[in-house]
């Protein structure tokens, strides 16, 4: 049972590490599906998703760096 729990949590962890990034990706895919349904040219679907995911990644990394910096500064003060 413990092993099964570990495997299931490992499988979940394969895809979700940072909740915000995972939710952002899902929202981006949903927006693309909606855009295609409402008339986005299929040839623009690729650039749409590529740019969206790239921006999500960069924003997430910068946010993580800022959070770690704030943590470090707090550690230095105390």
């Amino acid at each position: 049972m413990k092993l099964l729990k570990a495997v299931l949590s490992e499988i979940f962890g394969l895809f979700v590490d940072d909740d915000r990034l995972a939710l952002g990706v899902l929202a981006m895919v949903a927006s693309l599906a909606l855009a295609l349904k409402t008339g986005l040219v299929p040839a623009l679907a690729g650039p749409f998703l590529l740019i969206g995911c790239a921006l999500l990644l960069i924003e997430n990394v910068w946010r993580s760096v800022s959070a770690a910096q704030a943590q470090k500064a707090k550690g230095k003060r105390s």
Partner: protein
Amino acid sequence: MLNLSLVQLPAFSAAFAASLVEVVEAFTIVLAVSVVRGWWPAALGTLAGLVLLVVLVLTLGPLLALVPIHILQLSIGVLLLLFGLRWLRKAMLRSIGVIAMHDEARIFERETVELRRTAQASADWVAGIAAFKAIVLEGVEVVFIVISVGAGHGAAASQLLPASLGAALACVLVLALGFALHRPLTKVPENTLKFLVGVMLSAFGVYWTVEGLGGNWPGQDLALLPLAVTFWLLALAGVKYGRKQWQISA
């Protein structure tokens, strides 16, 4: 002789690089088990783990053929995006210095100490289960990568064979090196590989998600190359900027 076409190369290389990372991680634990308790518990745990993975593939593999191609592509695409971006994010944060690098020597030492602490009577069992767990947990990732980079084309033009060959080659390489050196493979540039795999899987993810949603790509599979290059350049720029920011606060 392995003869890969340009179309098969991305699936082969993505599966090879990703499997190399996972097999190195599993090998460290199996080696710790064999050093502390001998080869039997390590070999039995490994074998049992491999059998479970084969059963998993044989059970789930044929089900993929029943899924409509667009749903299959969309599901694989989204999962690959989540998986690839997660790896790329972590590799970027490690390169910047925010997260510590993965250290096989430290993991080997920790696992060895943990196994030595275990009571003598049940030690072989515990050691065998540790090897089994390492194989299953890391192996699940390998199975997912092989299936997802290989199955997007559907049954008719499946890339499962080149992807499986990539994973198998990684296993053979790690095992051969491991047996020869008999110590954790600390020299494998794990973060560079994770960076590369994150880039490739993210590119595969964007490609299959768009295909699954009914979008199209000029040049079909060749579109993977500019996708990967874009992710790679962007990630490198992100690391460069991130390092500057991180050093300012150091």
